[in-house]
């Protein structure tokens, strides 16, 4: 295997929570490395520790012990503000419930991460937002407000928002969880396209084992430990699945 750039390197991270008198071990020592251009599914049931792991990877939380390098930068000893800036420059989040700002246009929603980056001018911000929206196929809905859009469209806006800051990694948390089957595959198709055509590094967190077939690698978490970490040689195309699905009645 050729030497690729390490985007994420996790070394034996543990995370304990103190709830009342008890200590809960949410992560009990997890290690893996994710290289540039991988599409990784992190799978686990609820309570497996996958949400905790996602918080770590997203720099929203820091491990109790162990090291985490994002794009070569050690996150463990960073303060809140440093992590906020790191998230702003290096990470794109996609959430299950889209988390778009209410009564706000698509462009304004997508611009949001750049608003917190003082190095980006207003003109640049607008151009990049339009480019990202065009990328996800919403070039014709730039000024639609979030409450005038369908779930699939809202998730596309959210994906555009995750792309707009040119992150090194996209973290999708149950990104298809709120969508019907057809729309789910549409979103998956978009993610695969981003992975294959633009070589984006994507981590897709889900509890749905079916989705693992569409990524290049699957990490299964159980009880705070990695249960399996496998490369997927036979990647299914979401596009093809989409074509087998019955067309919606017009």
């Amino acid at each position, binding site marked *: 295997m050729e030497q690729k750039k390490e985007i994420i390197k996790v070394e034996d991270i543990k995370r304990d929570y103190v709830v009342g008198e008890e200590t809960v071990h949410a992560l009990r020592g997890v290690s893996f490395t994710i290289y540039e251009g991988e599409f990784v599914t992190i799978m686990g049931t609820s309570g497996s520790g996958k949400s905790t792991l996602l918080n770590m990877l997203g720099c*929203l939380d820091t491990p109790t012990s162990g090291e985490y390098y994002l794009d070569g930068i050690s996150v463990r000893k960073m303060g809140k*503000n440093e992590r*906020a800036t790191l998230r702003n420059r290096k990470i794109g989040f996609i959430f299950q419930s889209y988390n778009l700002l209410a009564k*706000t246009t698509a462009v304004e929603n997508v611009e*949001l*991460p750049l608003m917190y980056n*003082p190095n980006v001018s207003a003109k640049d911000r607008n151009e990049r937002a339009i480019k990202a929206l065009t990328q996800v196929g919403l070039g014709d809905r730039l000024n639609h407000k979030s409450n005038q859009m369908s779930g699939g469209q809202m998730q596309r806006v959210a994906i555009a928002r995750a792309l707009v800051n040119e992150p090194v990694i996209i973290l999708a948390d149950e990104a298809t969880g709120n969508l019907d089957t057809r729309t789910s595959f549409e979103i998956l198709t978009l993610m695969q396209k981003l992975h294959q055509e633009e070589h984006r590094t994507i981590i897709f967190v889900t509890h749905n084992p079916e989705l693992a077939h569409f990524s290049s690698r699957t990490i299964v978490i159980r009880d705070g430990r990695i249960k399996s970490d496998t490369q997927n040689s036979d990647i299914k195309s979401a596009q093809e699945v989409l074509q087998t699905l019955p067309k919606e009645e017009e």
Partner: protein
Amino acid sequence: MNIVNLFKIALRALNGNKFRGFLTMLGIIIGVAAVIAMLAIGQGSKKSIQDQISTMGSNMINVRPGTGQFGGVRQSASSMQTLKLEDYEAIVEQAEYITDATPEVSSSGQVIFGANNAPTTVYGVNPSYLDIRKYTISEGEMFSDEDVKTSAKMCVIGQTVVENLFTNGEDPIGRTIRFNKIPMKIIGVLASKGDNTMGMDQDDLILAPYTTVQKRILAITYIQSIAVSAISEDATESAIASIEEILRQRHKIGIGEEDDFNVRSQKELISMMSSTTDMMTILLACIAGISLLVGGIGIMNIMYVSVTERTREIGLRMSIGAKGVDILMQFLIEAILLSVAGGIIGVVLGIGSAYIVKNILLWPIDIQLYTILLSFVVCSATGIFFGWYPAKKAADLDPIEALRYE
């Protein structure tokens, strides 16, 4: 974080909730409008009193004999005979910061012309009296210093006296009237000044040379008071000090002893008269200030609800890179924008209602720039003060918890 972006973010957030924003501002709008209108009315009545007093000569100083004792019997000030013509001369020669001075003696009595008679007061003065008391001659002329020396039987009369005596519209100039049986020839008529603050008719008077009044009417040698004009209103304090020193020296009053005279300026009268309206203004402003405070609490209340309601939004903003301070600033700016916008509307409304009061109730108003500036400062301070706590609460949220908030 760039402050322009923060303003944009705050404006976009406010834009999404216009009606609520307006309701929140309403408290501030009413508070500021009330403060502006109340202060305008309070200041207005104060100013109208001041204006009236200054028509009597705002730089005027009055020297009167003080109360004193004769053989253990305390005397009233008017019966004191301690003020002499020499005191007047000493003031004219030595006092600093003064322009003019006149001795004053007065006598009340009936004035008679033909078949008409009327009660009035004759004031014995010198020609400077006109300048000191801000009177002007409308017809004829004032008597001269020469007339004072010769105790001439001449006089100048006010409009009320003209109306009372010359009922058939005769020209008063050149006529001779009798005051307490003393005949006096009218050589001039004063322009009307109307009533003073206390409601006294300032036109009901006769001016005559003080020597005439002293010798021919009152038969006295002392003078009842001295009217002095200072070079300006601001110089009255210094002029008073100078006059007091001269008089203490002349009356041989030692240190620590009670003066046998009183020196008063119109300024004191103004401050005395204004103290009531000042108190009223303060009371009105207090009531208005309380409504501003209630408005501020309204902002805090809404911001607090808004933070809770927008917990997920805050979580999202944090996850995509907003620092705690960015969130703090956003909510603080929202609060300040609300209060300052409310303040601007309030100022307009306050000025508007003050003018309505002026035009409909015909009350005097006086809007001063400082009251407007003050309202703005108070508004921004209210926004910061009452916006801080909710904003801090938002900034301290944990992004993980906030994102999961239902």
